[in-house]
């Protein structure tokens, strides 16, 4: 298993070139305020700033061209270390690196490069605009990498499918002592229930109807309990199955406090069967049943969905489930924390995890953009990440104090391309209203 590493991430859009990071680095590394000696270099002019910083490459050229064996990548931390006692100051590394990640410090006469301050980079907290982040999600991937993947290799998902990522992660975490229910949707569509008499999972899996997933899973869990065997009852359902026809069985199981973990993969429509709208499809979105164009809707012009989405996770809060949370694959640490809590809660009651899951095929964006789309949804407050327990109430886990305009989210995909100004205004208004609405829940929890 290849290891993942922590990394310093830079968001150019948030950088105003103030240089505080360089001062912090120079102070930490040279004891001076001389920003020319900083190992992080902000470059650019006016409003357009970029970064020169060692990327701690996986296949580092500086290391391969070093004649003295003075540079080497640490297998544990991923940091490319420089050994002063071996370096001969030949500068060949600076010729090897195409990213200006290692350069001459004219004062010391040696090369210098970022060593991430041993995992506590001085530049990151110095940035007043949040343009620098130290991303530690790698720890999760390393840990998860050691767990068994309980889905068969080679599921038939679309290229760049977020759901496949999510379900593989989830089942790895929930583990082998699991019975899995996957109602009709993308999950069985790509092969969870298998082909030709073999399942697509290494755990027992079944394929309920859209309407009875929670009911069937509840029965199975109870039967296992009766025979004295502890299992995790896990459902991975789509938003259609959960919020539309499957809703009564879901609501019933939640109301009865059945001991299960019900995960909804919300891709905002029936994507598996040809991208029809669901009650989770947002206002204005194109789907195959909310088309766009003149005369395409019974002879009338149409501009996408005309109703707002149902807020299913909030409805689940109103069931006072043992645990309810929303999550996004763009925030994996947050997702894993919630998965752990949900799993624990499912031992004694009903746990509901709602994951916003962009769909490259149905939402029409390039296959490599999934995380970016998911992140933009959060950064604009189009979706909000929070968790709820009856004891502590609702709490935002990734509060966005200064949300980007919703157009930043709408413009990264094709399903909103046709929107009129009025529609955009409607959506922005809805985002604000939604945020206030959920905010009130959280205030009650803390202030009350």
């Amino acid at each position: 298993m290849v290891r993942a590493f922590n990394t310093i991430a830079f968001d150019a859009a948030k950088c105003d070139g103030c240089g505080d990071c360089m001062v912090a680095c120079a102070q930490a590394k040279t004891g001076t305020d001389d920003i020319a000696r900083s190992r992080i270099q902000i470059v650019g002019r006016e409003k357009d700033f970029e970064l020169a910083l060692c990327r701690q490459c996986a296949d580092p050229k500086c290391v391969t061209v070093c004649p003295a064996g003075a540079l080497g990548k640490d297998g544990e931390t991923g940091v490319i270390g420089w050994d002063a006692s071996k370096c001969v100051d030949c500068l060949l590394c600076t010729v090897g690196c195409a990213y200006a990640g290692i350069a001459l410090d004219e004062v010391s006469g040696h090369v210098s490069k970022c060593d991430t301050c041993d995992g506590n980079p001085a530049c990151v907290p110095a940035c007043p605009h949040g343009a620098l982040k130290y991303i530690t999600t790698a720890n999760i991937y390393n840990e998860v990498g050691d767990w068994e993947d309980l889905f068969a290799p080679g599921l038939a998902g679309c290229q760049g499918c977020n759901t496949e990522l999510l379900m593989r992660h989830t089942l790895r975490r929930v583990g082998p002592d699991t019975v899995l229910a996957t109602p009709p949707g993308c999950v069985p569509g790509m092969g969870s229930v298998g082909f030709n008499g073999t399942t697509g999972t290494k755990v027992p899996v079944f394929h309920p109807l859209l309407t009875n997933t929670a009911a069937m899973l509840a029965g199975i869990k109870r039967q296992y309990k009766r025979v004295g065997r502890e299992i995790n009852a896990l459902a991975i359902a789509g938003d259609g199955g959960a919020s539309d026809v499957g809703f009564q069985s879901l609501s019933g199981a939640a109301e009865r406090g059945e001991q299960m973990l019900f995960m909804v993969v919300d891709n905002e429509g029936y994507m598996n069967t040809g991208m029809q709208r669901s009650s989770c499809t947002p206002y204005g979105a194109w789907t195959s049943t909310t088309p766009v164009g003149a005369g395409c809707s019974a002879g009338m012009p149409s501009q996408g969905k005309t109703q707002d989405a149902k807020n299913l996770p909030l409805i689940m809060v109103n069931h006072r489930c043992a645990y309810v949370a929303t999550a996004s694959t763009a925030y994996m640490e947050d997702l894993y924390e919630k998965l752990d809590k949900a799993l624990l809660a499912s031992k004694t009651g009903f746990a509901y995890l709602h994951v916003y899951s962009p769909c490259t095929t149905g939402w029409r964006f390039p296959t490599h953009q999934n995380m970016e789309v998911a992140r933009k949804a959060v950064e604009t407050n189009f979706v909000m990440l929070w968790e709820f327990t009856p004891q502590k109430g609702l709490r935002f886990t990734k509060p966005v104090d200064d949300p980007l305009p919703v157009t930043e989210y709408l413009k990264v995909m094709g399903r909103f391309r046709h929107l009129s100004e009025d529609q955009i205004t409607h959506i922005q208004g809805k985002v604000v209203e939604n945020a206030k609405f959920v905010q009130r829940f959280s205030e009650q929890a803390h202030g009350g």
Partner: protein
Amino acid sequence: MDQAMEQTKYLIVGSSHAALEAVSAIRMHDPEGSLTVVTRDAHLPYSPTVLPYVVSGKSAPERIFLRDDDFFARNKVSYRPKAALAALHADSNTAELADGSHLAYEKLLLATGASPAIPPIPGIDTVSYHVLRTLDDALKLRDAIAKSKQAVVLGAGLVGMHAAENLVKAGASVTIVEMSDQLTAGYFDKVAAQMIEQAFIDNGAKIMTGNRVVRLEPSPVGAKLTLENGTTLEADLLLVATGVKPEMAYLNGSGVEHGQGILVDDRMQTSVANVWAAGDCAQARGFFTDTQVMNAILPDATVQGRVAGMAMAGDPGIKEYPGGVPLNTYHFFGRHAISVGSSKVPEGGEVVTRFDEKTGRYLKAIFQDGRLTGIFGVNEFFDGGVMCQLILRRIDLTDVKERLLANPLAVGREIMSKTWR
């Protein structure tokens, strides 16, 4: 054929930069296939480039190795020092080693580098002299320098200049004899060479450019040199550093085509099936010419080794060799010089220079049609790797030329972050 001849899937000859990069590239794609490295050297892998620092004492000889036994064990590589390739029998896919043994390969990489070229000066075989290419050479030279009072260095390339500086610092009186009329020709232009020369003179070295040794003979001190102009010099230490020649004597009769070096295509394959070559022994496409050239520098050896390894392992991710770009860095008496790209001014090319007497900062850049073809600095630091990308990508710099020259470090980085970050 004699009974059970030893077989290996991959055979790599040589243990330096090109060879090591090929090992990594092969293992990236084929973790299991049997892999054997044979090398003439007696040690673990090290770089010839570090040797001047072994000579000066800056690098401890036992700390210069680029890989250890554990690396070869982990990567399932059979590493065999003191095993020189003597003859290649390409028709039967076998390599004959100096001890007479044979090894059968499926794929062979020749990464045998270069050796010092010894000029045919009359009498050269009657005197003892030093060269610098192997660790053993370096240790001998290090010991000799400690004792030397009057030394002569033949050749003012980077190897000779490095050694001369070491000699100066060790307190010997040093004379550098160079055939051409400028130092470090080929790497640096006249202005830069002048700055280098001045630094040496300031530190007490004698430099005789445009001079040629016509005779060598033993003398009580060591060696007596007679120059073309009649001058004679006495040396207790003579270092021959007049250039290198590719190591390829084993090719004789193998059918592998060679010119100045072993001729290879853009995947480092030779004219013969199952045989590749990379590094200082190879003659590959030049970036600035359509012909095959020698570009005997470390960074290029790694690039070529990487391409060869990927080709040998059948890695579909292979990118063809873009052609060699000259790159050099040079440290002298606490100053530094960097050269990236071709020092030749192409037809219709534009040369821009700036020189600051006070700080001794010198910068020269060559453009053709707004594209950078070469950039050279003394005491002016810029990111050589970034400049090299500007050249390789043929980026149009017409609009930023002035700014780039004023501040190559910042503007280079700016372009980098907009273009290939």
